[in-house]
């Protein structure tokens, strides 16, 4: 017969014994001030700078690679980076950049105009990620290396936004990449797992299942601050709770800055965590599919715009953490007419507009984004208020991959989609131009409204360099978007960057979203 002692022996089996031996306590990762560990919610499954372009995975682009210019700070300013200057031809079609003399790749090879030419040709050939910014304006074979330090872009047409998109042309070491090409593949599989850049940090270890680590590139052409981190480690941690606990525990020094606000509030309670607050350029809105009745009727769209409880959503769901943004352009960006108030929550006005709708009403669909609580909450709130004016709503929740596929065509796009429009380049065209101009239908647009007059205005604004005239045009277009209710614009996102309390000099930019870490340093 087994005794109690036998039982205790069995119950105290290996795992607990193992845990007990470790009970001495483990040092948290934060012990080292030489290393910055960042926990991200998206996988670093590909580190090719010409393929990856989404906000969540920008760490590889900004830390391992350099562009000719770079967006920094908030509001974002474009500063010379690999290029020290540029000139534009009188017709606005020829951009000539002069490269720095002292810039080198991580393998020590000097960066030349040939590398710039190879990089833009590679982007256009791969037709992925950032290529959509150039595919119409830069044709293959048109970019020239005039000498080792001078590169010339010959655009198909004048473009007011080309310069603003230049920071996204990240330069790769052409000799190194060419050595790894196989059968004209532009070394795509190789560069997905290896690095050929000149950035502030050089890749040290990469594991798509884990993330990457990078060591500071001491020969970088831009001087570092007093106490830069010697090593960066970016890890993929899918579970939000694990990221939050890891930051509180000191395992991570930074986590992604667009967490649900309740998690930010949770982090505020930790003494060893700081929240860096910045107004971003990321407008939360309902995309409206204007092609289907009754949404093709301006009165129905206005009824919708009056039926969303903006203040209630910001006050009760967002806990007052964001500012109302009445138009398509983020508040800090020029191009919105002074005094644009947008729509207010007024169900009487909504009913009044609804009475003028000619087409019969039908249930409309809101396709919210799975995993983004604000998107789902906005959809449900809207569903409730629309019911009060007699509009039935079906809420569907799908992952972004499904939503974005549906948005490719007006036939498959849902009636309303609560989403964020982020910053890819800092120009009103990024928001209102891409929303309304029919040249972006099926690609960067999610409105499908077509008005030749608006198209002509926006095309003109794209081609001219007169800033005052551009501002006037965008103000007109923004007013028209408002009058036509081509979207339901709710708030401009605030970025709450959670970092360890002993980190300083985090420089947020709405383009790099706090992942450009060459400026960060630990307290003395």
């Amino acid at each position, binding site marked *: 017969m087994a005794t109690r002692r036998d*039982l205790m022996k*069995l119950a105290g089996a290996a795992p607990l014994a193992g845990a007990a031996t470790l009970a001495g306590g483990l040092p948290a990762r934060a012990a080292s001030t030489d290393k910055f560990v960042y926990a991200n919610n998206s996988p670093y499954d590909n580190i090719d700078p010409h393929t990856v372009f989404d906000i969540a995975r920008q760490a590889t682009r900004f830390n391992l690679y350099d562009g000719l210019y770079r967006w920094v700070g908030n509001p974002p300013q474009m500063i010379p980076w690999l290029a020290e200057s540029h000139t534009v031809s009188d017709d606005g079609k020829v951009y000539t950049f002069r490269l720095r003399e002292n810039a080198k790749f991580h393998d020590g090879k000097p960066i030349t105009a040939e590398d710039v030419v190879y990089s833009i040709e590679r982007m256009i050939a791969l037709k*992925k990620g950032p290529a959509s910014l150039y595919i119409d304006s830069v044709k293959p074979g048109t970019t020239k290396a005039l000498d080792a330090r001078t590169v010339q872009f010959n655009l198909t047409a004048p473009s007011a936004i080309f310069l603003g998109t230049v920071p996204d042309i990240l330069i790769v070491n052409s000799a190194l990449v060419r050595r790894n090409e196989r059968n004209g593949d532009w070394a795509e599989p190789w560069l*997905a797992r290896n690095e050929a850049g000149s950035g502030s940090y050089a890749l040290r270890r990469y*594991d798509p299942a884990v993330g990457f680590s990078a060591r500071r590139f001491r020969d970088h052409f831009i001087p570092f601050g007093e106490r830069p981190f010697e090593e960066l480690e970016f890890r993929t941690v899918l579970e939000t709770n694990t990221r939050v606990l890891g930051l509180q525990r000191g395992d991570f020094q930074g986590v992604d800055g667009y967490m649900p606000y309740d998690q930010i509030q949770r982090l505020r309670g930790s003494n060893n965590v700081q929240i860096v607050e910045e107004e971003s350029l990321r407008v939360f809105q309902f995309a409206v599919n204007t092609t289907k009745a009754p949404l093709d009727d301006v009165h129905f769209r206005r009824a919708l715009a009056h039926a969303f409880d903006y203040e209630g959503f910001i006050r009760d769901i967002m806990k007052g953490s964001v500012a109302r943004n009445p138009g398509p352009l983020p508040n800090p960006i020029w191009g919105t007419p002074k005094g644009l108030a947008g729509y207010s929550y007024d169900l009487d006005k909504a009913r009044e507009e609804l009475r003028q709708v000619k087409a019969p009403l039908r249930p409309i669909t809101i396709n919210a984004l799975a995993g983004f609580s604000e998107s789902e909450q906005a959809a449900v709130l809207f569903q409730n208020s629309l019911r009060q004016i007699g509009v039935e709503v079906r809420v569907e929740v799908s992952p972004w991959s499904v939503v974005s596929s549906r948005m490719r065509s007006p036939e498959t796009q849902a009636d309303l989609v609560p989403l964020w429009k982020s910053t890819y380049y800092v120009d009103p065209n990024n928001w209102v131009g891409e929303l309304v101009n029919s040249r972006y239908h099926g690609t960067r647009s999610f409105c499908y409204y077509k008005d030749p007059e608006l198209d002509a205005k926006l095309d003109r604004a794209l081609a001219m360099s007169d800033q005052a005239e551009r501002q006037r045009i965008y103000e007109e277009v923004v007013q028209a978007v408002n009058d036509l209710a081509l979207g339901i614009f709710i708030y401009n996102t605030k970025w709450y960057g959670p970092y360890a309390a002993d980190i300083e000099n985090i420089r947020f930019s709405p383009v790099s979203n706090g992942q450009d870490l060459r400026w960060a340093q630990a307290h003395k």
Partner: protein
Amino acid sequence: MVWLNIILNRLVWLVPTLLGLLVIVFLLSRVVPIDPARLVAGENASPSQIEAVRQQLGFDRPLPVQFVRYVGDVARGDFGTSLFTQQPILDDLSARLPATLELTLVAVLIATGLGIPLGVLCGLHRNSWLDHGLRIVTVSGLAVASFWLAMQLQFLFSMKLGWLPLSGRIEGFPPEEVTGLVILDALIDGDPEIIRSAVSHIVLPAITLALPAAATMVRFTRNGVLGAIDSPSVAYQTAMGYPRRQVVWKYVLRMAITATVTQLGLIFGILLAGAVVVETVFDWPGIGAYAVRSILQSDYNAVMGFTLWTGAIFVLVNLLVDLLQATIDPRGAR
């Protein structure tokens, strides 16, 4: 001969099983309202960009052509290329297999070390306080959601007590890969700090996986013991004067363990196919976490590859369980 029969029988069924799985997975992946070409090209890609990617990936061809091509590729061991990592699926899975295998082995060891002895004790002390108490514990263990258990363990052992790491497989990146099993590689490396880091990181995820598995094994072992203990052969062994310890741990256990081994095989297969939730919560870079990422990103090829992998693992594990049972109790195999 018995083993050969079992192996041949299982192999004959392997092909239609996997083919059926392939058809279902392929059709399901094409029914989902997602355009993979658009995903790969990027959310802002132009129609020409998307079409170029579609042609490059072969998604422009008729569905039957795509399927036949896919089956042919799989038959040659080519599961396709991940839409996101740009690497062959088999390479992606192989790279993550050691992490999952290591976690599975440790979890199964813990589950076996706990489950079988406790199951025997429950069986020997039927309806005692020990039996009732453990029944409550095992039912609770089965009912507890793994993500909840994982978070509670994280909260207690990492946040409150600070004894164990919160997540990850090791501090930073693992040592030079020899076997891919980090604990083993750390032992080969010989650095005590790395060994300590590797061992401490596996404790919480392994226990999270092991506790429900141990609960299953307690219940099956207990039932097996109850069935065996009244058998004539045990009565004979006892009458022959063998020591009780020997009767229990040699003869009773041998008869009782057949069902437990079946469960053990199933648990091993489930865990090896990817402990999806636990790997995600603990940021464990294994096959389960890969599956989650692939699903979230709608990486068709990766999801199909993972599903086939899961099917193959189950067929293989069933085969091994049959062989093990034939060894323990040859009567059943005849």
